[in-house]
């Protein structure tokens, strides 16, 4: 099995679903001939033609709205939002429309669409090519919000998302695209959308994280194991909405010490919901306050590198938060 990047994994997942099912389509800005600004859809238009891989006008509400309309007429569209920062124009179509078709029609109309959303801080991205916007969508019943962080999971979950009868927001960390690689099974597999994953077993502290910070948490976990003998249980939520509460709670109860790390602005982030869940349901097991680490409550990663580095939760900050928790 050759090692593949997150980007390649998602590309393959898409291509395979399109080969397997004629109704699967891709639409978005620059996704066609150019293959997307990140090249996730590269080659797909050549293989499937300009109708199944369609460059849309620059209009996010249209992209998601049209995807909804395609899906009610037999298609399985995968829409791309070029950068998470540009999803707000589509907000209405996502939260008021896609998420509510099934409920409001008493189960008559469902909306099997996938919306791919590259997010997260990259150097040079600045205020509008960096945001972690997932919390906006995690108070909306009817929607599924997933954010896999490893290539194999991402491929498997993308396939599940395409096949799922509900609208799925699929968050992809841009910095992980080419940085994170792993071996990917060759066969046609899928990964469920509703299962959190325990990446590392440990008895001292539990850390929940996703996106680039998950990778840093895993590195820090290895370091503090070696250097300080602290063993961290590391859990990736995989789905941010709904949450796999049981897996998260089990890990929290196991160690009694709990930390959530994400790259989003801390206040009002998904970390708050996870922390509240643990504070409620694992209270009797807790030996320390439920802790959180995130970006400060300032708009987003600035352009200037020193400011950007100051803004994101750094490996150092992550490690010291983990040690602080262990020592509590």
């Amino acid at each position, binding site marked *: 099995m050759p090692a593949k990047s997150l980007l390649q994994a998602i590309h393959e997942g898409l291509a395979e679903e399109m080969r397997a099912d004629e109704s699967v389509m891709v639409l978005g800005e620059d996704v066609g001939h150019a293959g997307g600004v990140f090249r996730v859809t590269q080659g797909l238009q050549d293989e499937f033609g300009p109708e199944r891989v369609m460059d849309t006008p620059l209009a996010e509400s*249209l992209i998601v709205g049209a995807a909804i309309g395609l899906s009610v007429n037999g298609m399985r569209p995968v829409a791309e939002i070029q950068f998470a920062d540009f999803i707000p124009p589509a907000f209405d179509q996502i939260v008021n429309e896609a998420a509510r078709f099934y*409920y409001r029609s008493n189960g008559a109309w469902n909306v099997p669409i996938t919306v791919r959303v590259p997010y997260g801080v990259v150097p040079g991205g600045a205020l509008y090519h960096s945001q972690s916007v997932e919390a906006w969508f995690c108070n909306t019943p009817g929607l599924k919000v997933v954010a896999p962080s490893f290539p194999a999971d991402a491929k498997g979950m993308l396939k599940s998302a395409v096949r799922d009868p509900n609208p799925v927001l699929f968050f992809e960390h841009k910095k992980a695209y080419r940085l994170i690689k792993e071996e990917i099974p060759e066969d046609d597999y899928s990964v469920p959308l509703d299962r959190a994953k325990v990446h590392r077993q440990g008895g001292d502290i539990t850390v929940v994280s996703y996106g680039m910070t998950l990778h840093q948490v895993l590195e820090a976990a290895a370091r503090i194991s070696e250097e300080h003998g602290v063993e961290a249980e590391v859990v990736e939520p995989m789905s941010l909405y709904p949450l796999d509460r049981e897996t998260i709670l089990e890990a929290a109860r196991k160690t009694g010490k709990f930390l959530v790390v994400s790259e989003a602005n801390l206040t009002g982030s998904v970390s708050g919901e996870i922390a509240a869940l643990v504070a409620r349901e694992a209270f009797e097991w807790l030996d320390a306050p439920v802790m959180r680490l995130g970006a400060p409550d300032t708009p987003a990663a600035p352009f200037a590198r020193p400011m950007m580095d100051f803004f994101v939760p750094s490996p150092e900050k992550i490690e010291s938060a983990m040690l602080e928790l262990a020592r509590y």
Partner: protein
Amino acid sequence: MDVKEARARHEELGLGDDDLLRMYETMLLARRVDERMWILNRQGKAAFVISCQGHEGVQVAAAYNLRPGYDYVYPYYRDFGITTVLGQTPRDHFLSLLARKEDPNSGGRQMPGHFSSRKLNIVTSSAPVGVQYPQATGTALAFKVRGEDGVVLVTGGEASTSQGDWHEAMNFAGIHDLPVIFLIENNVYAISVPENLQVAGSIAGRAAGYGFPGHEVDGNDVLAVYETVKEAVGRARRGEGPTLVEARTYRLTAHSSDDDDRRYRERDEVENWRKKDPIVRYEHYLEEAGLLDEETKEEIEERVREQVAEASDYAEQAPLADPEEALGRVYAEV
């Protein structure tokens, strides 16, 4: 006009006598259902009414061009006339009005006027104004991608054209020659806001900027609407692209049962428009064409009355939606 002259008009359009009478009966049915809704509201039985009164001509004439269950329709909250042509019954409307468990639109979850029928390809609609337009283009694109000759009818009030979604959809439809008909039911007001504060220039006039035809039509002239939409549907079915139809009409009631239109409309204005009531005007045509006399009219009126009474009673007796149903059907099962 003598009878022959009168008949010439609909015959040219390919409409038979029975078509004409069916359209008439459907318009009347929509009107009487609507009137009954207000009675139920005044009796304290219906929490909310939104009306089609005044729009019946546009709606019935437009929808009469469609193939129910094949073409897709994205109606807006006034389209009792459209959904009735497609096959929704007065019973359906009253079940929805009274939030009964059997409500076919939403099982009592949504306000009346938020139509839905999977069987009839009436796509579930909602309250946020304008969202239906991008969706309609997507549905039309699916037809095009598969090479099918289905068309999509999407409607809205004149204020719905103020939303960005309308424009994004017009542009997309124009780029890909999508089989979609944008039908704007321009009734001069958006709740209280008059057209001159809502629409710059002309709605119909905007289609040219997107490279496809736009027509302004007298929405109270049933045959004129029929003709315009017929042409648009034909164009769409032949793969020639979208059409915008702006049908000018007037809302004869308040915006909804929550509104008091005396705040912003002169009674004179309303009375003047009442004289142009599309149903009355159509009756004149039918009379001139020798298709409607007092007797037939009474017969139809009686049939409609009975249907409405039966449907209203049925809905009143029907069980309410269950409380726990509030929790059901959030996600479709995999």
